[in-house]
């Protein structure tokens, strides 16, 4: 088996080394070099980029990214849990319900973000409708703020919580709930004391699947945030374009990756069944 297995794994190893690990190593190198006169990189080797990072403003950007990603993740979990519960309890058509959740995912993420641009602007549907009903008299500034960004992120990543939560809830032993009912527990108590704790693996998986992409989000804050706030993704992109400071951009990228890895270790620790 070993020989066949080696052949089977070889292409992936090649792809991983050439197209993932080597590029990361290059970025690591870049982060330790100096910015070229008008962009690019030159020697000398220096840790200056990392030193620059220890600065209140970048910590503020990091904090903001955490808060936006955290809010989006929390909302995704809150909104996704009841939906996953519903699907896991459905007697028939489970695959249909699941498919219905995944359907928006199969369309373009860009399109889904654009949908909210379309809906939230002053002359967009939401404002026009609210004004027609008479609830408001002048348009609400729904777009170009953190709320719009979080909404866009939640909308984009909600399916990512529903699936793992459903997978865990589906395997839940119903007899536990029956036993609780027999012992006199009210449905709400059964939910909070049994169902939710037992779905911890699903919650963890969903949290990882949403929090990490949201942390490094770039498109959604770009299109829905109005350029008024900076998240890490924007900062990195900015360094490689407008600022032409490749070493600094590389340093920020690697710090972001380090944070992600720490988070994974903390959240996924003790996970018996890993993703792979």
């Amino acid at each position, binding site marked *: 088996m070993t020989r066949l297995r080696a052949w089977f794994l070889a292409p992936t190893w090649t792809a991983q080394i050439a197209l993932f690990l080597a590029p990361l190593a290059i970025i690591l190198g870049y982060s330790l070099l100096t910015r070229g006169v008008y962009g690019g990189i030159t020697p000398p080797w220096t840790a200056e980029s990392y030193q620059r990072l220890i600065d209140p403003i970048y910590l503020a950007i990091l904090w903001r990214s955490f808060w936006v990603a955290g809010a989006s993740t929390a909302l995704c979990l809150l909104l996704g849990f009841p939906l996953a519960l519903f699907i896991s309890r459905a007697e028939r058509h489970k695959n249909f319900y699941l498919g219905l959740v995944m*359907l928006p995912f199969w369309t373009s993420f860009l399109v889904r973000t*654009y949908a909210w641009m379309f809906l939230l602007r002053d002359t967009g549907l939401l404002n026009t409708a609210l004004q027609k009903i008479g609830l408001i008299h002048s348009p609400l500034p729904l777009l170009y703020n953190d709320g719009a960004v979080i909404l866009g992120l939640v909308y984009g990543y909600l399916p990512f919580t529903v699936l793992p939560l459903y997978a865990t809830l589906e395997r839940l032993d119903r007899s536990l709930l029956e036993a609780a009912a027999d012992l006199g527990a009210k*449905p709400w108590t059964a939910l909070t004391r049994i169902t939710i704790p037992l779905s911890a693996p699903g919650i963890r998986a969903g949290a990882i699947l949403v929090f990490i992409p949201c942390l490094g989000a770039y498109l959604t804050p770009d299109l829905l945030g109005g350029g008024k706030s900076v998240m890490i993704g924007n900062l990195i992109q900015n360094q490689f374009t407008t600022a032409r400071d490749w070493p600094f951009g590389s340093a920020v990228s690697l710090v972001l990756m380090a944070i992600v890895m720490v988070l994974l270790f903390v959240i996924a620790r003790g996970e018996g069944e890993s993703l792979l």
Partner: protein
Amino acid sequence: MRRRGTALAIYAIAAYLFLHLPLLILSIFSFNASRFTVWEGFSLHWYSAALQDSQLTESALNSLIIAIAATAVSTVVGTLCAYGLWKRNSRPLAGSLYLSLVTPEIVTGISLLAFYQWIFRFLRVQLGMHTVILAHVSFSIAYVVIVVIARLRTVDATLEEAALDLGANEWQAFRYVTLPAILPGIIAAALLAFTVSFDDYVITSLVAGVNSETLPMVIYAIARRGVNPVVNAISALIVVGFGALVLVSERLQRA
């Protein structure tokens, strides 16, 4: 219990509406004669504008070619890898794949750009379709591995042992016993890889070259300039297109 069942059902309806209404509204307004949110009559004007725009059609074709090529390669490579890992795990490889999954797109994109620029110092090759396809293959493999491994976990390992006992070699055991069993998973993985590739903006925009502009890049450029019903039309077409693709894949998986 029944009261809670109803409450959950109502919530589910609301959640599904939340998920689907924005896209539905987007599509409805793609038929609006006016470019503003006031309904001014049914019109296919934006669709004809979209289909006549050579930049849009060319980029759509590019996206299609890139997605098909990247899907083909990553599905094959990923399936083989999943099988290899299922037989016996390799912590380094699994770890590397997992890492590539959780790396933020912007980091993957700029690292690939830097990588290509280094390669080009020695190999005089240009940015183009192939650089984009390679980039897409690189991030798709992990998705394929996850889906196929999940499917493999439902396969009974003893079946292959039985085949080996009956005189088959390893390749035959894989090819005639396991592979047919996981084919639905492979198709699902291919669909996922195709979607992820077709949809990608961040990484593609960084490594695309002269003749490899993709549909998301064009959509983004238009969206950057403000709301434009042509984007509504394209979005509706994409939704319908992928809906059809999902249906086809469901049929294939069941066949």
